[in-house]
């Protein structure tokens, strides 16, 4: 999975990339690689620097420092037209003065593909995105989803070494987004094109990508398979960003079995020990679906925290129960059925192995292990 395993398989390598706009460091020492055929998502909130990374890879921004390599060859100074990197932007860049077919053929013409072969390639790629019958249409006649698909066909037609998708779904409605996401997954499987998918939407990223690279404030703050990052987030930011912010702070009383104190409440997490010094303050994160809400008096095996129900939102397929566990500290529990009433005193329980602990000062993950 990592680019150390086999140097020859790495299609795209970003090495110590940094970029400054004036005084502002937009990208700070970013390094990652993509193997041939992989679909990697670069994900992070708006303004985290991911678009600058993409623009550097495409060659539209010259980075202040660092190196971009394709097939192991340094392309940092190579102009965009000589890189073999296709790009699809958030907003449509189809040429309004050309038909859909001419748009798809555009990149082929640049490479001097013979007319017969060009027609065949255009047909093949229009079929791939199910737009064969829109070949003579103008981009303005297409729907939003069709326009996205036409752009994909145009980007794929010249068989790029790397396909960059820069927030291709962000301007779309949720229904259309999910449909197009599945379409992109299918097309990537069928073509096997090495793809970097850039998005601020963690759901899109996790649904599509083999691997995630999470950025925040110009730096990489996490990388790995979606499930690994979700189940063992390396920082509180990754935990909140991939799931939903759901944290409380506590003080470690004992590290084996892990016992923490919040206010006047002591919570023992049986069967778990933590690699942390006593008396250190930690930030605890639990994903909302790992929490369950019970009547306050009930005592079960799972560790729990007392609180009062502040709000119950009926989301249709589940209830989001907000429990106030202290001044300004709320936990949200996702409950499938029988929600409590507002103002009920409740206990919020969680399986001990679903707790994530982070060092308060440095934000690093505290390793937990079964006893």
């Amino acid at each position: 999975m990592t680019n150390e395993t086999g140097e020859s398989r790495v299609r795209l390598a970003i090495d110590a990339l940094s970029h400054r706009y004036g005084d502002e460091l937009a990208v700070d020492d970013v390094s990652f690689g993509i193997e041939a055929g992989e679909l990697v998502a670069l994900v992070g909130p708006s303004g985290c620097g991911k678009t600058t990374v993409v623009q550097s890879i495409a060659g539209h921004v010259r980075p202040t420092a660092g190196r971009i390599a394709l097939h192991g060859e340094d392309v940092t100074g190579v102009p965009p037209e000589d890189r073999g990197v296709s790009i699809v932007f958030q907003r449509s860049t189809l040429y309004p003065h050309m038909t859909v077919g001419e748009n798809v053929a555009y990149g082929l013409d640049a490479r001097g593909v013979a007319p017969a072969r060009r027609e065949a390639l255009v047909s093949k790629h229009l079929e791939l995105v199910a737009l064969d019958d829109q070949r003579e249409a103008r981009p303005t006649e297409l729907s939003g989803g069709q326009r996205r698909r036409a752009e994909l066909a145009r980007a794929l037609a010249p068989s790029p070494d790397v396909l960059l998708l820069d927030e291709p779904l962000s301007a779309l409605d949720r229904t259309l987004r999910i449909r197009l996401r599945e379409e992109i997954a299918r097309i990537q499987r069928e073509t096997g094109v090495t793809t970097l998918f850039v998005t601020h939407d963690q759901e899109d990223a996790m649904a599509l990508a083999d691997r995630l690279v999470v950025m925040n404030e110009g730096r990489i703050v996490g990388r790995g398979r979606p499930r690994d990052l979700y189940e063992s987030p390396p920082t509180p930011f990754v935990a909140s960003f991939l799931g939903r912010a759901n944290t409380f702070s506590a003080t470690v009383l004992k590290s084996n079995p892990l016992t923490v104190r919040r206010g006047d409440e002591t919570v023992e997490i049986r069967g778990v020990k933590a690699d942390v010094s006593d008396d250190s303050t930690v930030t605890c994160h639990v994903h909302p679906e790992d929490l369950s809400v019970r009547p306050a008096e009930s005592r079960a095996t799972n560790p729990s925290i007392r609180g009062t129900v502040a709000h119950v939102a009926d989301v249709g397929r589940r209830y989001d129960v907000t429990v106030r566990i202290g001044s300004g500290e709320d936990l949200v529990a996702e409950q499938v059925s029988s929600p409590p009433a507002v103002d009920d005193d409740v206990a919020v329980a969680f399986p001990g192995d679903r707790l994530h602990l982070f060092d308060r000062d440095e934000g690093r993950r505290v390793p937990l292990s079964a006893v």
Partner: protein
Amino acid sequence: MNRTDTVGSGRSFRVPGRLVPAVLGGFLLVYFAFPFLSFLSRTGTANVAARLSTPEAQAAIRNSLLTAPVSTAVATVFGVPLAYLLARASFVGKRLVEGIVVLPLVLPPVVGGAMLLTAVGRFTPVGRVAAAAGVPLTGSLLGVVLAQTFVAAPFVVITARAGFGSVDERLEQASRSLGYGPLATFWNVSLPLARGAILAGITLTFARAIGEFGATMMVAYNPRTIPTRIWIDFISGGIDTVVPLALALLAITLAVITAVQRFGRIPTVVDG
């Protein structure tokens, strides 16, 4: 987006609130339209055909139709690339360059003419060399072209710049990533997409060039163009003698604007 983004089409609904601007603006419209209509109604009384067939009128028309297209072409060939640079590139001294481009636009034409005389006049180094080579830069058709270009070129630069500016830069980036160099991208993408604005700029430049008077009077009082001829006729014969030539100039201007409207956008495009 689409329909959901079109906000506030309930125009008729608000008419009461628009009465004040409508009345104020109406005055200006009347002030613009009234002279135009008076002028057209006056043309009936003048012997247009006879006046236009005099040798003087013929020469003026010929000179104007020779010089204005040349000035427009020069302004376009050099101005459109400049407009593209101003729209896309950022460089040290860009503000200065923008100032230089606007200068001839805000400069009174007679001052522009005076400036040209200090630059290429008969007794300047440049003017002397040119005159010695048989191509005098003042008092010649070339002088007319120089005056027209100086005064009219900013229009095509400013309008084309706005046109390039409204083309999403990502369309050019996509073209680069699809394998085209900067020049090919300019030809394939930027130029066709900014076409309407460029045509509007060319039209404005042509209108300004063929109507140029102040700078031409200073740089090339001779040979006469239509505007200078109108002036000569006016001081010698009064308003009625100039109506035919003024009508001809008006006709040429409106014809060009109409022709361009057919292919591109209306020249109100100065407003971006």
